[in-house]
């Protein structure tokens, strides 16, 4: 899980899950809700791609379509599950004791630890688009926890903002990872400095056009980089561009 790669949008895994039939106990919504998932790493029925990236295991670009669509309440252990809402509204319920509603820019970190359940729902008629990232913890069976944050693409544009990890204002998680957002409305060049040379960086283009060490990324393209030294050069296009940058220990 420490090999560099380029993953174009169309090369990702794809699953469509319906709220009826075989997956009806898993997928919420009735009668015709459907959930689509583009996976950057192996997950569920998609097992022919990358296994993960460092301490990251799941990267799902998911759309919940149809009122009530989502995941019925289900059980987890250990994984730190992060959700970044891109569009629509996400209702998140967990057994830590939270009922939360998240709008575009909002994000959460739910650490399932010694055991927790959660439910993810789109209660509205328009689509909800969420990126889910699962992180291995650095300790097993931690006390479950939940925290949330907000990224403001207007006030925090044209600069790097760390959302998760060891940084001012970021959600702290029990793992050596850092998740940042870089949203621009003009061409901006940024030198991303890694916390350690042994770390890798996975860059996912949510929107727009960007260049990562001169590799061109379009919407939903991504690249994973290991052994690139202690810095990575990022450049965004003149149009609105939005990058999610995930740094991980090997």
């Amino acid at each position, binding site marked *: 899980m420490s090999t560099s790669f380029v993953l174009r949008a169309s090369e990702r895994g794809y699953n469509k899950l319906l709220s009826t039939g075989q997956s009806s106990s898993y997928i919420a919504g009735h009668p015709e809700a459907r959930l689509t998932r583009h996976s950057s790493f192996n997950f569920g029925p998609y097992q022919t791609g990358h296994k993960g990236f460092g301490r990251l295991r799941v990267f799902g670009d998911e759309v919940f379509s149809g009122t009530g669509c989502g995941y019925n309440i289900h059980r987890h252990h250990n994984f730190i599950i992060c959700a970044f809402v891109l569009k629509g509204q996400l209702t998140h319920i967990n057994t830590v004791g939270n009922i939360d509603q998240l709008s575009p820019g909002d994000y959460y970190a739910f650490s*399932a630890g010694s055991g927790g359940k959660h439910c993810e729902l789109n209660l509205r008629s328009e689509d909800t688009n969420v990126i889910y990232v699962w992180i291995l913890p650095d300790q097993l069976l931690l006390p479950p926890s939940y925290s949330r944050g907000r990224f403001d693409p207007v006030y925090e544009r044209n600069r790097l903002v760390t959302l998760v990890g060891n940084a001012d204002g970021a959600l702290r998680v029990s793992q050596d990872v850092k998740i940042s957002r870089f949203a621009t409305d003009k061409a901006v060049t940024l030198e991303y400095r890694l916390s350690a040379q042994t770390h890798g960086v996975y860059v996912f283009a949510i929107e727009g056009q960007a260049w990562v060490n001169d590799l061109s990324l379009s919407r939903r393209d991504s690249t994973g980089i290991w052994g690139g030294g202690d810095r990575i050069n990022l450049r965004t296009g003149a149009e609105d561009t939005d990058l999610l940058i995930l740094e991980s220990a090997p």
Partner: protein
Amino acid sequence: MSNEPFKRWLCLGCGFLYDEELGSAEHGLAAGTRWADVPDDWVCPDCGTPKHLFEMVEIPYASGQPVQRPTA
């Protein structure tokens, strides 16, 4: 009896942990049952993920864990 250290396996579908040292008595696996001896058709008791989609992890327990101790 193998002298190999016990290993820990994590379900990549939900995070369920199988620790060889502890086994999983409620799912019919006695303490000390090696992963290799878990039947190939065994699935995660929480989410149904097949055995081959578990990953061996070298992650320590959090303080106070595991609550369940292996029986002699």
